[in-house]
């Protein structure tokens, strides 16, 4: 077939996806993925969590196969069956979590699978090392090419991923939220590298939740929502408000139904919590009826603090006081008994027993109180579970259904139900709405708001700025293990919170 060329661009686009569809069973992850990457240009792909961005990336990478639609590379239709094929076609993908080999050296990580060899197939270590050094010099970074990759910061690991792409001479570079865990200086360094790659004529795709970055770095932007293509615009012809409207597709206010609550006494007090290399001197308190948002970048140490408070992880110094009495270190059982609940970040691995029924999961944390002489009957279990399932409006065929068959949003409700059943005084929720659809999201928000109104103290960890700003009475910000900001609701703006989360320590002081 002939490719129709737009008159303004003589060169065919580096990569062009049109109406790509992908479903997993009954769930449609990508309804209509359409995006065009021009050579020598940086294109932004934005959308809420669950908008289908990652699925799109994985299709480009050859990790998933599309169900329908077309992919064209420099005007020619392609079909990738494996990551090796997309790589060979000159596409490099940098995932949010760098995927490197921790036990191998930095140099080996860059060249694995295509090391320079001599005539006998022997790896030419000298040449390999020299090339790695050359790439690092070009990128203006100093990473020891001989050290093992384990222990490198996320920023440096991303540099290695980029070095990999450069050594491959990739023409198309996809970066899936590369800045999620980077500090301000590191972001600047990454952007400088990205711009120089663009100027060499490569096509880049940049996925980010941060609008300032999108506007600072990119030339064009595509918005996705609920697995569908919404719009593509030149960065110069759009605005943050416009993009937000396209992304959310509805009024933001209705997503965060914040109810007025009476703020009472301090229930949870954390003083000087420290664990070397993870978090340092973290002090804060949460009052009854208050929702405290804990914002920050991925990897800032927020979940680790929550786990330490709950007693799952150790800490070296500091203390945690719950309702006036000190909480012993490293003892979740006591923490639970005293009225502390932790809804973890990864509900599938840490929050649920996916193979068990909904009612088993809901009653998991209150088994002891349900048991008569040590025995639990299905009837008592179902009765207790039914209360919470109906209160949280869990959508399931029956309470006996395997929890793994529920949608993400309903699974999250089951985890919430499990902890609410323990009737906690303090509820810590870690990323309560990650990966769930917009409708369920606002239900979860409404629930949290109601709980606070009834006097529960809530600590909400969230990486989604609108959620923190929309829900919290007070916002705490962490950066690289330090508490770098505290703002009352009135003073918390995207700018102040983002600055505290990303600015360098020197600047923040």
């Amino acid at each position, binding site marked *: 077939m002939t490719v129709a060329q737009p008159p303004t661009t003589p060169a065919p686009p580096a990569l062009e996806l049109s109406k790509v569809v992908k479903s997993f069973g009954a769930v449609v992850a990508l309804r209509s993925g359409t995006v065009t990457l021009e050579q020598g240009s940086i294109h932004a792909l934005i959308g809420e969590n669950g908008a289908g961005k990652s699925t799109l990336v994985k299709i480009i990478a050859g990790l998933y196969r599309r169900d329908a639609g077309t992919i064209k590379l420099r005007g020619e239709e392609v079909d990738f069956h494996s990551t090796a094929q997309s790589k060979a076609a000159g596409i490099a993908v940098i995932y949010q979590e760098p995927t490197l080999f921790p036990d191998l050296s930095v140099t080996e990580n860059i060249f694995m*699978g295509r090391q320079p060899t001599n005539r006998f197939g022997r790896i030419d270590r000298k040449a390999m090392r020299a090339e790695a050094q050359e790439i690092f010099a070009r990128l203006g970074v100093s990473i020891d090419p001989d050290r093992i990759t384990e222990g490198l910061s996320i920023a440096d690991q991303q540099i290695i991923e980029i070095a990999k792409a450069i050594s491959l001479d990739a023409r198309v570079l996809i970066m899936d939220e590369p800045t999620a865990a980077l500090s301000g*200086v590191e972001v600047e360094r990454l952007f400088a590298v990205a711009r120089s790659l663009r100027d060499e004529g490569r096509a880049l795709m940049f996925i980010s939740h941060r609008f300032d970055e999108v506007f600072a770095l990119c030339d064009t932007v595509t918005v996705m929502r609920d697995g569908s293509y919404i719009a593509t615009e030149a960065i110069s012809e759009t605005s943050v408000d416009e993009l937000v409207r396209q992304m959310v597709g509805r009024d933001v206010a209705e997503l965060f139904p914040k109810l007025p609550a009476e703020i009472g006494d301090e229930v949870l007090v954390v003083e000087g919590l420290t664990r070397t290399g993870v978090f340092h001197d973290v002090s804060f308190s949460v009052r009854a009826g208050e929702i405290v948002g804990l914002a920050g970048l991925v990897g800032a140490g927020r979940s680790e603090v929550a786990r330490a408070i709950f007693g799952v992880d150790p800490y070296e110094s500091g203390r945690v006081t719950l309702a006036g009495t000190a909480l012993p270190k490293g003892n979740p059982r006591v923490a639970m008994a005293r009225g502390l609940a932790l809804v973890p970040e990864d509900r599938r691995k840490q929050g649920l027993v996916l193979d068990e029924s909904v009612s088993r999961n809901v009653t998991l944390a209150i088994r002891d109180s349900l048991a008569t002489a040590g025995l639990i009957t299905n009837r008592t279990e179902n009765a207790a579970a039914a209360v919470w399932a109906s209160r949280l409006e869990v959508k399931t065929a029956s309470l006996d259904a395997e929890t793994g068959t529920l949608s993400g949003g309903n699974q999250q409700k089951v985890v919430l139900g499990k902890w609410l059943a323990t009737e906690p005084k303090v509820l810590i929720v870690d990323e309560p709405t990650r990966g769930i659809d917009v409708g369920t999201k606002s239900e979860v928000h409404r629930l949290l708001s109601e709980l606070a109104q009834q006097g529960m103290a809530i600590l909400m960890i969230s990486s989604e700025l609108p959620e923190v700003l929309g829900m919290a009475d007070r916002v705490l910000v962490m950066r690289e293990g330090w508490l770098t900001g505290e703002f009352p609701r009135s003073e918390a703006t995207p700018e102040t919170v983002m600055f505290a989360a990303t600015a360098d320590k020197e600047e923040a002081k």
Partner: protein
Amino acid sequence: MTATAAPPAKPGTSAASRAVSHLFKARETGIVIALLLVIVVATIVNPNFLFSSDGFRDLLLTPSLLLLVAVGQAVVIITRNVDLSVGSVLGLTAYLTGRLFIDVPGIPIIVVFIAGIALGAALGLINGALVAFAKVPALVITLGTLYVYRGINVAWTGSDRINASDLPAAFRGLGTGQILYIPILTIIAVVVLVIAAWVLRNLRSGREFYAIGSDPDAAHLYGLRVTRRILTAFLLSGALSGLAGVLYAARYGTVSSQAGTGWELQAIGAAVIGGVAISGGVGTLWGAAIGAYLLLTINRALPILGIQDFWQRAVVGALIIGAIVLDRVLALRQSRKLLEIREEGR
């Protein structure tokens, strides 16, 4: 930025002195020292341990077969798998060797070697295919084939056994013969070791074994041919066990249906003692080979040192646990050090 720059190499640091410092840091150095220590102590107690022609020969000879099996095992472990069937593979090929000499009079020795290695490779390939395609953990698959292969062996052998008289003298000579005081079996084992270690260090395919074991998901994203490498690792382990099986017949002359029982655990023990991480991605074949020597030399030294029979196994067990604890402590110390460097760099 948080990158930690390497301390610039001091001017005048010669390649030789770097090699020496590398030698001191290498995990293998520790076990070599332990091995020498065992030999020295045992020799002081009983000089015949080293200074008799039999003593010296046994020192080199006894661990040679285990070395072959341990090298194959180490490759499999480096890919984050394990091969529990090696003892059964060894038993089957040892019996095959005897049967070939009995049933095919005048069969050339080299044909027997090829047949043994081929049978081992085929059995290894079955393991590899089950692990790579059925996506069942290697521990379970090879536990199954351990019993299946042994069962075939018992059904085939029955109460029969191969005796030394069934084997041609030239073949048996391989098991006891020496060249320049070095046993032929040891020479074969070391040649295999040198080649395999070279491949693992210098060829792309060799490095990919490490990559796959270090992070299988990343290996997949890198576009490495994970399935093929895992098949190769098990094939190699099977082939080396097959070779060891043929040599077993040459060395001991007698082969019953129970030959090689328990070797899988010794081979894993040797690899672990030698610094091959059971979680994959770390370790060298040289380490595994020295581990095999340490394991069996201690076994022989303990009776000389007057340690009672039933304590000997406990000592071997303590050695394995000690090696793992040591590796864990070193790994923790290293990750802590890297973390501190990162914190300072801020």
